C-alpha cells in the first residue's frame, strides 16, 4: 500500500486470512489433548491419546469405543450417527466399570470423529486414584487450576473456622468474665445485705438486754441510795453500762463506715446551743479529773441557724474533748471556736473552726500518721492506763470528711495535742426547727401511761420506773392487747415497743391513728432497740410522735414524758414558763456526788453540810434576784459563780450547769443572755434545793 504523502502516516494493510487452518501433527495432538480419541463410523478407535492410554491401559486402537465406555450424558444411544448429531453437546463418557468419566466434545475431522476432553476429577486424591500425575494434563487444561482452587478454598474455610472458633472462645471468655462479675456483684450485695441485717439484728439484740440493765440499775440506785458501798457498786455498773453503750454505738458507726453507710442527716441548728451542750457535758468530767475546761470564742459563732448534722458535729467535739481529758493528767483542756463567712458562693455559708487543745501526754511522731486509723491507741499495749477501742477518732475523721471538712492534728510527745475540725455549713433561712409543740400540760395528778412491750423483764422494769415517779401504768405484751386497752380506757401517753409478736408497734400505731377519736391525738412514743439509721423516720412515718432508743435511763424517759406534757405530781413544776434548761435544773439530785462528799468528810456530817449549803444558796439566790432587778450584771455573775461551784459539790449538777452558763454569758459580755439565765436559775433553784433538803432529811433519818 503506498504511503499517503499528505498525512505522513503509513497505512497498515489488513492481514489476509489463511487459506487453510493450521493442521496438527499427531505429536501436537498428543501434547494439546492427551486424553483424545478418534473413532470411525463403526465406533472403532483409530487413535488414542497417551493420557487416555495411561488412564485405561487396556484401551488400544482397533477396539470399539463401546468396549470401554458408555454414553452417560446426554442420555442417547451410543451410535456414530448420534455422536455426529451431538457435536454441539457436552458429552460424558463413563467407563464400563464406572470409572473413569471423560468430559469433552466431538468434532468431525477427516471422515472420522475426534473427541477432545479429559477425565473428571474433583480432588488431588482423585487424580492419584486414576493413576495420573498433574503433568499428564495439558498445560492449558483447567483441571489442575480447579483442583488448586478447591484446595485453596478449603484452606480459606478452615481459616474462617479458626477465626470463628477464636471469636467464639473470646466471646465465651467474656461471657464467663461477665457472669463472674455479676456473681461477684450479687455476692457482694448479699454480703452487704447480710452485714446490714446482722448489724440491725445485733444492735437490737444488744440494746434490748442493755435496756434492762440500765433500767434495773436505775431502780437499784434509788433503792441503795443510803448504802454507800452498794451505791458505789451500782454507780460503777451504770458507768460500765454507759461505756458499753458508747462502744456499741462506735462499733456500729465504724461498721457502717466500713460499708459506706455512715451518713449525715442535715437539719437546721444553732451553733451556740450546740457548743453550750458540749461544754455542759464535758465540764464535769474535766472537773472530776482536776482539769480546767476552757471554752473560748463562743461569741464568734453565727447567730443565724446553720444547716448541718448537729448530732455528728457534737459527736466529733465530744470525742475530741473526751480524748483530751482522758490523756491529760494536769493542766487545761480548751475548746476554741472561730467562725467567718465563707467566700461568696451560691448561698451564704460559714467556715467554722473548732480547736481542741490539751496539755496532756501528746502523741509520738511515729504514731501520729496513723492516729485516725481504726483501733489506733496511744499506748496499745497491756500496760495502757487508757480505755477505749480507738474507734472514735477514725469515726470523727470520716464524719469530718463526709461533711466536706477536715480533721487534723498537731502534737508532740509529752507536750500535748491540738486537734482541729474545720467545716463549712450553709446558713439556714429559717430558725432551727423546734420539736413538734407538745400539747399543753395535763393537770392529772397521776397520768395514765400505757406500756406496750413484749419482753416481760423490760416491761416490768419500765412500769416500776414509772410508778415510782408517780404515774399510773397499764401494760400490754403486744399490739393487739394495746388496741383492746386503748378501746376501753383513756390514756395520756403510750410507750410503744416496735418489735412485738402478733402485731408490732408500727402496725399498732397506724391502727390507733386510723381509728380516730382520742387515738388521733394520743402521744405515742417509740421505745425501741431499733437504733439504726432510718429507724426513727420509720417510726415517725407510722404515726408515732417521738422516738427513744433502748437502753433509756429514767431521766431520759421522764424528761420525754414531761416534754409531752405528761408529768406526774412528783415531777410537775409550777407554771413558771420554765425552759428546758430549767427543767433539767429541777431534775434528780446527784446522789453519787453526795456519797462522795460523805466519803470525803464524814457521812454523819452530810446532812449538816447540806443544810449549810442550802441556806447559803438561798442567800445567794436572793442576791441574784436583787441584782437582776438593778440590772447589776457583775453581782449576778459573781453570785452565780459561787453558787455554781458549790452546787456541783453538793449534788446539784443541773443547777451547777445553769449557774456556770449564767457566769459564762457575762464573761462573754452577753449581759442579756446572762440575765435570762439568771432568771432561769431563780426559777429552777427552789425545786432543786427542796429536793436536796428532802435527801438530807432522808439521810438523817428520824
Amino acid at each position, binding site marked *: 500500500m503506498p504511503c499517503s504523502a499528505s498525512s505522513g502516516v503509513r497505512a497498515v494493510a489488513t492481514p489476509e486470512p489463511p487459506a487453510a487452518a493450521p493442521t496438527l501433527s499427531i505429536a501436537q495432538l498428543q501434547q494439546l489433548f492427551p486424553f483424545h480419541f478418534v473413532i470411525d463410523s463403526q465406533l472403532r478407535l483409530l487413535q488414542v491419546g497417551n493420557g487416555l492410554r495411561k488412564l485405561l491401559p487396556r484401551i488400544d486402537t482397533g477396539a470399539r469405543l463401546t468396549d470401554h465406555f458408555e454414553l452417560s450424558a446426554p442420555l442417547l444411544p451410543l451410535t456414530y450417527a448420534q455422536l455426529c448429531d451431538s457435536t454441539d453437546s457436552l458429552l460424558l463418557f463413563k467407563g464400563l466399570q464406572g470409572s473413569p468419566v471423560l468430559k469433552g466434545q466431538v468434532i468431525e475431522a477427516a471422515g472420522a470423529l475426534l473427541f477432545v476432553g479429559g477425565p473428571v476429577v474433583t480432588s*488431588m486424591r482423585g487424580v492419584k486414584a486414576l493413576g495420573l*500425575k498433574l*503433568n499428564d494434563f495439558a*498445560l492449558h487444561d483447567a483441571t*489442575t*487450576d480447579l483442583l*488448586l*482452587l478447591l484446595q*485453596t478454598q478449603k484452606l480459606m474455610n478452615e*481459616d474462617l473456622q479458626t477465626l470463628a472458633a477464636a471469636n467464639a472462645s473470646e466471646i465465651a471468655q467474656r461471657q464467663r468474665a461477665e457472669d463472674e462479675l455479676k456473681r461477684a456483684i450479687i455476692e457482694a450485695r448479699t454480703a452487704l445485705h447480710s452485714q446490714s441485717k446482722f448489724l440491725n439484728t445485733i444492735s437490737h439484740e444488744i440494746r434490748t438486754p442493755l435496756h434492762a440493765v440500765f433500767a434495773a440499775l436505775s431502780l437499784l440506785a434509788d433503792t441503795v441510795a443510803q448504802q454507800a458501798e452498794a451505791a458505789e457498786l451500782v454507780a460503777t455498773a451504770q458507768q460500765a453500762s454507759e461505756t458499753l453503750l458508747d462502744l456499741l454505738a462506735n462499733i456500729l458507726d465504724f461498721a457502717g463506715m466500713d460499708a459506706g453507710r455512715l451518713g449525715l442527716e442535715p437539719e437546721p441548728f444553732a451553733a451556740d446551743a450546740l457548743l453550750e451542750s458540749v461544754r455542759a457535758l464535758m465540764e464535769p468530767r474535766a472537773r472530776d479529773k482536776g482539769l480546767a475546761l476552757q471554752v473560748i470564742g463562743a461569741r464568734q459563732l453565727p447567730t443565724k441557724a446553720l444547716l448541718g448534722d448537729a448530732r455528728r458535729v457534737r459527736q466529733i467535739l465530744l470525742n475530741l474533748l473526751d480524748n483530751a481529758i482522758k490523756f491529760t493528767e494536769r493542766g487545761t483542756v480548751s475548746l476554741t471556736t472561730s467562725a467567718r463567712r465563707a467566700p461568696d458562693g451560691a448561698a451564704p455559708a460559714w467556715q467554722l473552726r473548732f480547736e481542741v487543745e490539751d496539755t496532756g501526754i501528746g502523741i509520738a511522731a511515729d504514731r501520729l500518721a496513723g492516729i485516725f486509723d481504726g483501733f489506733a491507741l496511744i499506748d496499745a499495749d497491756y500496760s495502757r492506763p487508757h480505755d477505749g477501742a480507738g474507734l472514735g477518732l477514725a469515726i470523727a475523721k470520716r464524719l469530718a470528711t463526709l461533711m466536706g471538712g477536715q480533721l487534723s492534728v498537731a502534737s508532740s510527745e509529752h507536750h500535748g495535742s491540738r486537734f482541729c475540725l474545720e467545716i463549712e455549713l450553709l446558713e439556714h433561712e429559717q430558725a432551727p426547727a423546734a420539736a413538734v409543740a407538745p400539747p399543753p400540760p395535763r393537770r392529772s395528778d397521776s397520768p395514765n401511761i400505757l406500756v406496750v412491750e413484749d419482753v416481760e423483764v423490760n416491761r416490768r422494769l419500765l412500769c416500776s420506773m414509772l410508778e415510782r415517779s408517780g404515774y399510773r401504768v397499764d401494760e400490754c405484751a403486744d399490739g393487739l392487747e394495746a388496741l383492746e386497752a386503748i378501746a376501753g380506757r383513756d390514756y395520756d401517753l403510750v410507750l410503744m415497743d416496735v418489735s412485738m409478736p402478733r402485731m408490732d408497734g408500727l402496725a399498732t400505731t397506724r391502727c390507733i391513728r386510723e381509728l380516730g377519736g382520742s387515738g388521733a391525738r394520743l402521744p405515742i412514743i417509740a421505745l425501741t432497740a431499733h437504733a439504726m439509721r432510718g429507724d426513727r423516720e420509720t417510726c415517725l412515718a407510722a404515726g408515732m410522735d417521738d422516738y427513744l432508743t433502748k437502753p433509756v435511763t429514767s431521766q431520759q424517759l421522764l424528761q420525754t414524758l414531761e416534754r409531752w406534757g405528761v408529768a406526774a405530781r412528783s415531777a410537775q413544776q409550777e407554771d413558771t414558763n420554765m425552759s428546758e434548761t430549767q427543767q433539767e435544773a429541777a431534775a434528780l439530785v446527784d446522789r453519787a456526788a453526795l456519797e462522795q462528799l460523805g466519803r470525803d468528810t464524814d457521812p454523819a456530817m452530810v446532812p449538816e453540810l447540806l443544810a449549810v449549803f442550802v441556806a447559803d444558796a438561798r442567800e445567794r439566790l436572793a442576791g441574784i434576784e436583787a441584782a437582776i432587778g438593778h440590772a447589776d450584771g457583775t453581782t449576778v455573775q459573781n453570785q452565780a459563780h459561787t453558787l455554781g461551784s458549790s452546787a456541783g459539790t453538793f449534788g446539784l449538777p443541773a443547777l451547777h450547769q445553769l449557774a456556770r452558763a449564767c457566769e459564762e454569758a457575762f464573761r462573754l459580755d452577753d449581759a442579756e443572755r446572762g440575765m435570762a439565765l439568771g432568771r432561769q436559775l431563780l426559777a429552777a433553784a427552789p425545786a432543786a434545793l427542796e429536793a436536796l433538803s428532802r435527801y438530807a432529811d432522808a439521810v438523817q433519818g428520824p
Partner: protein
Amino acid sequence: MYGMINEAIRRMVTEGHGVAAWEALAARASCPTSFLRMSQYPDAITYDLVAAASAGLGTPVSELLESFGSYWIDFASEHYGELFDLWGDSFPDTVANLNALHTRIGQMLPELQPPSFSLSERDGHSFLLHYYSRRAGLEPMVIGLLQGIGRHFATAVEVAWLRDHSPDHAVFRVQWGPRSGDA
C-alpha cells in the same frame, strides 16, 4: 506474603524449639503469634521474624532460610494434599514443574507474587535453574526448596549458587544422584 509462609515459620520454630521460644521470637519481632494461612500480611513481618529467629536461635539468616526452604516443601504439601506426589515422578520432573505450579497458585491467590523458574543446560543428572523474584535475599530458601524436593524423592541433591552467572537473576547449578533404592 501470605500467612501460610509465616505460619510455616511458626511451626518450624515451635517444632524445633518449643512454644516459649516462638512466643519470645514473635515478641522480639513485634509480630502476632499466629497467622491466617490465606490472609495477606506485610512482607516486613516475614523479614522481621527471620531476623528475630536468627538472633534468637543464633543461626545465620542464610542457614535459617535454607532450613526453611526445605521445611516449606513438607508444609505446603500437607496443605495442598498430595501435591508433590502428583507434580512429578522424579526430582527433575518436579523441579521442571515448579514454574507451572507457582503460576497456577498465583491465579488462586491474587496478591501472591510468586517467583519464576526456568531450566537450561539440562542433561540426565544436572541442569541450571534460573530463579526470578521480585524479593531480594531469598536465594538460600531456593536452595532449601531444592534440597526438600530431593528429600521427598529420596534423591541426593547438590546445589551451587552461581553468584556471578547473571546480574539480574540468580542461577543455581543443580546436580542429583540416583534415587535411593533405584538400581
